[in-house]
Every structure is written in structure tokens, then in C-alpha cells.
């Protein structure tokens, strides 16, 4: 009761404001009709979005058609598709080393496997976590915080912590040492390092997706669970036939976001492995970043071209998912 009193006090000025806002908006609605209001609701987002996301993207595309080391378009020369041609000049597409931009193709290959494994494992982990957190646990908030905690850390700190854990003189070796194992250089072993980048990025981002799924789980009407219970449904089946389909819209969010974020993996890996050993954890964003910004070998045009290619792949992937998602979305409608 006091809580609601408090929040209503808090909301009073906001509500008053909204009321004032309402009058002109009603007139607007009269004038434009309901579909006009759709445009109104969309407008602010689209405006900001257009200026700060879309426009830079277009400029970026122009970049990819220019050469030189200068940052600003005015000082760059137009080279047409040359940067793309360079990225694609390979003797054998299956062997990155045969390409002119061998690092690009190595990064593409690495990113592919990373995304595949990271996304699937992370979604699995988030889903399990969300399901478990959705149970009537004692100290719910505490457990939520536990799984969310790493999200609060900046990527640099994440990379650092895990470097300290995994490096030869790190905590992990120390713990293993207590059990009599010899110290091992995890971070110089290609397989382990690759696994570590996956594990660490799951560790760092899982909380976000868990939270989205948790909100989705909570939105499933409880009477459906009651109906399923009356139908004598085993928990596993409830999960597959009720929870999962009804979670589909949120699962779609999670898959799309996780996929995109995975393709863009950078900071924490950069700190943790720097892309090594060799180039085994060199991912696309690091390639783009180094190509575009690392001072000596800078080539913003090439970086832009690579990023456009990366964007294209992502668009295709997302469209595929939305295609799948659309069907399940319609199913979810009550």
C-alpha cells in the first residue's frame, strides 16, 4: 500500500505531463486517423535512428569504395570495387592462406565457428537458467543477480579477469596445482583458447539473454500451465509443447540478438587472447578494427568493405530467422 502510494506520488507529475501532452495529440489523431498515429509513434525513433545509425551506414558504404589512409571522405580517392576485389582475391577459398587478405578469411572462418558454438551453447545455458530462475526459488533476486552479475562488468574487465584465471600463472592453474596437476599454458593452446573465448563470452553475456527469457516466461498465462497440469502433462512435455512455443517471440529476440552480438565479438576476446594463438581467435570485428584503426596498417576503405560484407551476411541470417519466427509468432496469438 505504501509502495503504491509512493509510486503514485512519483508518477503524479509525469501523469500530469502526459495529460497535457494528450490534448494536442488527440487533435493530431483526429486529423491523421489511427494509421497516422502509427507514424507518429514511429517518428522519433526513426528520426534518431536515421541520423545516427542509417546515415553512417550509408556513408560507410561509400567508404568501402574509396582508398587511401585518410579518415575523411573528402580526402579519399574513389576506387570503386577494388577493396571488395581485394578481399575476394583468393586462389582457393577454402584455404585462407591462399588469399591476398588471408587474415580476413581466417577471421571469417573463426567467426563462423565461434558464432555457431557460442550462440547455441549460450541460448541453451540462458534457457536452462531462465527456467530454473523461474521456479519459485527462495532468494529469487539474489539468484537472478548472480547470473546477471557478469553483464555489469565492462568487457575489458571481463577479458582481464579471465586472463588472470587462464594464463599460465593464473588462478586455474593454481587450483589445478593444488590437485597435483602441472601448470598448463591454456592460452597458447589453439583449442583451449578458442573454447575459452566461447566460454568467456557466454559467461559475460548470458545474463542478458536469461533476463529476456525470464520476462518471456513470466508472461505466459498461468492458466495454460494449469490446463496442462490437468491434462496430466509431464514437465518435459510442458516445456516442449507449451513453454517453448509460447516463448517463441522472446526466443526469437534472443536468437537474433545473440547471433548479432556473437558476430560482433571483440573487446573481451581482444583483452583475453588478442586474437591468438597465432590467428586462431582472430574474429571479424578485430580484423575490421585493426584494418581500419591500428595506426600503421590502416586502411579504412578495406575495413568498411569488410564490414559491409559482414552486415550482408547478418541481414541474410536475420531474415532467415524472422521467416521462421513469423510463423511461430502467428501461432502465439491468442
Amino acid at each position: 500500500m505504501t509502495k503504491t502510494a509512493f509510486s503514485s506520488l512519483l508518477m503524479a507529475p509525469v501523469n500530469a505531463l502526459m495529460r497535457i501532452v494528450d490534448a494536442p495529440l488527440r487533435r493530431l489523431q483526429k486529423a491523421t486517423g489511427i494509421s497516422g498515429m502509427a507514424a507518429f509513434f514511429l517518428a522519433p525513433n526513426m528520426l534518431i535512428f536515421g541520423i545516427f545509425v542509417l546515415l553512417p551506414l550509408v556513408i560507410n558504404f561509400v567508404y568501402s569504395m574509396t582508398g587511401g589512409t585518410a579518415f575523411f571522405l573528402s580526402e579519399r580517392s574513389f576506387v570503386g570495387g577494388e577493396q571488395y576485389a581485394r578481399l575476394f582475391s583468393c586462389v582457393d577459398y577454402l584455404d585462407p592462406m591462399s588469399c591476398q587478405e588471408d587474415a580476413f578469411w581466417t577471421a571469417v572462418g573463426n567467426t563462423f565457428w565461434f558464432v555457431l558454438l557460442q550462440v547455441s551453447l549460450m541460448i541453451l545455458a540462458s534457457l536452462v537458467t531462465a527456467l530454473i530462475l523461474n521456479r519459485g526459488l527462495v532468494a529469487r533476486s539474489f539468484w537472478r543477480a548472480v547470473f546477471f552479475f557478469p553483464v555489469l562488468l565492462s568487457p575489458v574487465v571481463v577479458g582481464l579477469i579471465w586472463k588472470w584465471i587462464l594464463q599460465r600463472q593464473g588462478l586455474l592453474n593454481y587450483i589445478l596445482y593444488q590437485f597435483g596437476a602441472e601448470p598448463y599454458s591454456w592460452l597458447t593452446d589453439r583449442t583451449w583458447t578458442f573454447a575459452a573465448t566461447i566460454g568467456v563470452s557466454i559467461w559475460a553475456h548470458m545474463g542478458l539473454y536469461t533476463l529476456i527469457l525470464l520476462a518471456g516466461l513470466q508472461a505466459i498465462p498461468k492458466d495454460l500451465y494449469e490446463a496442462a497440469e490437468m491434462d496430466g502433462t509431464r514437465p518435459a512435455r510442458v516445456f516442449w509443447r507449451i513453454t517453448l512455443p509460447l516463448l517463441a517471440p522472446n526466443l526469437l529476440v534472443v536468437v537474433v540478438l545473440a547471433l548479432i552480438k556473437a558476430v560482433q565479438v571483440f573487446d573481451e576476446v581482444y583483452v583475453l587472447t588478442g586474437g591468438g594463438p597465432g590467428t586462431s581467435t582472430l574474429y571479424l570485428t578485430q580484423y575490421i578494427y585493426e584494418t581500419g584503426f591500428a595506426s600503421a596498417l590502416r586502411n579504412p576503405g578495406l575495413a568498411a568493405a569488410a564490414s559491409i560484407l559482414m552486415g550482408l551476411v547478418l541481414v541474410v541470417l536475420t531474415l532467415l530467422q524472422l521467416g521462421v519466427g513469423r510463423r511461430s509468432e502467428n501461432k502465439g496469438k491468442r
Partner: protein
Amino acid sequence: GDVRIMWYSDGVEGEVMKDLVDRFMKENPGINVILDNVAYGVVREQLPVQLEAGNGPDIARVAQIKDLSRHWLDLRPLVKDPAYWDENFGAQADWMRPDGSNQISGFMTQITLTGGFANKTLFDQAGVPVPGPDASWEDWAAATKKVKESQQIPYAMAIDRSGHRITAPLLSYGANYIGADDKPAPIDAGAKDYLTKFVGWVEDGTMAKDVWVSAAGTTYRAAADDFINGQLAFYYSGSWQVANLATKIGDNFDWVATGSPCGPAACTGMPGGAALVAIKYTKNPKDVATFMDWFAREEIVKEFSERTLFLPGHKAVVEKGGLSFKSDNEQAKAALTKFVEASKTTSDIALKLPAWRWSDTFYAAIVTRVSQALAGELKIEDAFSRIDADIAQKVKDAGQ
């Protein structure tokens, strides 16, 4: 008016600088100096972008001084006594001005020199004498290997993962990056010679593998932590590590600076450092010059160096000697003295490289490709040809 300085710190220099700036403002009440402390990453990555856009601070402490030299302000008409500048900072003036000009862009806040550190305690315990000043890289390898075996440490030696660091031994082995027309030359026999050895050492466990292998691209990675923990007998880094080692090693073991090991051609380290430069786009060139003048004064440079444990880039200060570094750590003082001494054996080409436009390109290519070779992704011969190809491509890109 306002003078903004973009400043990054590796250690305590930010605080020293703050002190000095306060003092300056007291003496020059009309000028308001604002110190914007930033990460080195900002200086390296954002500053170039800002500069191209014509933004940026009035003064900056930078390390890529040659690359961005077209953005520096020419202080020659503004400073009180250009002759003083030429006299005392002339040696490095080329590092920070466009080729062929006589511009005064600023001065070095710090000269660095690459060099080695040995864990004397480990040597003592192993009963192996620390190799002398004329010892070659092979000698060091042999000696540290003995230490490694007797003391059960994981690695004998390590070099920071950095093109600049590895260039020092390359030069000692007779490498020359600079071609006839001042363009990059193909990687030569001297360089190949050392790099092949280096790869061999990493493979046989003499050189620490982690440092070079656990990163890709041009990522910088230091091996200081291993040395600090007594896991290395010999560590090749540079003068800037002295303060760091002093605080972190404390009394755990004895360490000494050794200068750079020798090769067939020289016993050279690589010079480098950070400069304080004025920027063209300032609205207050006069105040900027006043500040630069003040800060370049001999006693200020001296004080700054003493308090930060940096090697000064001021000729008079160096020549007069008598720097009393503000440290109660005897080993640190000894090490700094050793570095000052070692600077005398710096080879000509090493002195030229900081002012050469393509050195960063070279460094980047070497680091990238050699670590791939170390990770087993490339054969060392392929690495060499890739290095050449990378550099050639860069030269071509830049021409566009």
C-alpha cells in the same frame, strides 16, 4: 586563454605533470591549462580521427609522432628562443616533423631505450655468471638456458610482443629496413637471421612462447609479469619498465639492467619515446608556445625526469649529468644509469628509424607474421614473404 593538453600516463607522470601545470599557471595567471588525462588508446586511435577533422586539443603527449606530423604546429616563430630548442632537442626534432621541414613541433618528454633486465638472484642461485656487456644474444641464450634448467623456471628469456622491441636485435644482426629511395626495403639477411633464431628459441622453450603466441595482429603484449614473478632469467624490454619493476619486484629478488645484447653488427637498443607536441588547430598559439617554452626549460625537464624516472630528451640535462632520480630503490637507480650508458652504443640506423615514415608499417608486419610463424600457422620463409607483401601493399595503399 585556455590550453588543453591531452595526456596519457604509464605511471606517475600524470601527477607530476599536474604539479608542474599548477606551478605554471601560478606563474602565468593569464593562461588556463587544462590537463585531459586519457587512455593511451585514445591518443593512438581517437586523436588521429579528431585531428583529421580539425578538432583535438592544443597540446598532446603522443607516441606516433612522425605519422601525424602534418598536424603539429610549427613553434619556431612562436617560441622565445628557437636556438635553445634546436640545441637541446635537435637530435629528435626530425622524429616529429614532416620530412624535409625545419619545424619545431615540440620536444620529447621522455626518451626510451630498449634493453634487457636480468634476474640476478636466479643467476646467482644457478651459479651462472651474468653475461657481460659484450655478450651476444647467443651467449645470453646459452647462459639463461642453464639458469632455466637449474632453477626450474618455465622460460629462460622473453621479449615483449612489439615490433619496436624486436627491431633492436634485428638491427644488431645487421638488418636495415630503409631502402635506397627511403621506401621500405625487402626484409634482409640480417633480419631473417635473427628471426629464424628467435623462432628456434621459442620452439625449444628458451624464449617465452606465451607472449608472442597468445595474441594476433599488432596487439602489444608485455612479458613484465613473468619477470616480476621470477619466472624469467632475462627479459628484453626497455627503460620505461624500471619504475614498474622497482615497485612490483620490491625485495623479492635482485635484478639488473643489462643493456642490449650484441649481434654481429651492433649492440644496439631501439630509441623511442613520447613527445609533447603543439597542434596546428589551436586557437591560442601564443599561450601554447608560452607553455611549451616554460615546460622545455632545463630545470623543469630535469625535475620532470627525476620525478618520473624517465630518461630526459634534453641535451644539456643529459650532458651535464647529475640527474638524481627520485627513488629509494638502488636497483632502479642503477638500472637507469645503465640505460643512459647503453644509449651510447645505439646504432645510426636505430636513431634514424623513429623519424622514418614506414617504421610502424615494418613493425606491424613483423609482429603479425612472426607470431603466426610461432603459432605454427606459417613457415618462417612464408612469413618473410608475407612481411614483404604486407609492406608493399601498405606502400601502395598510402600512395592512393
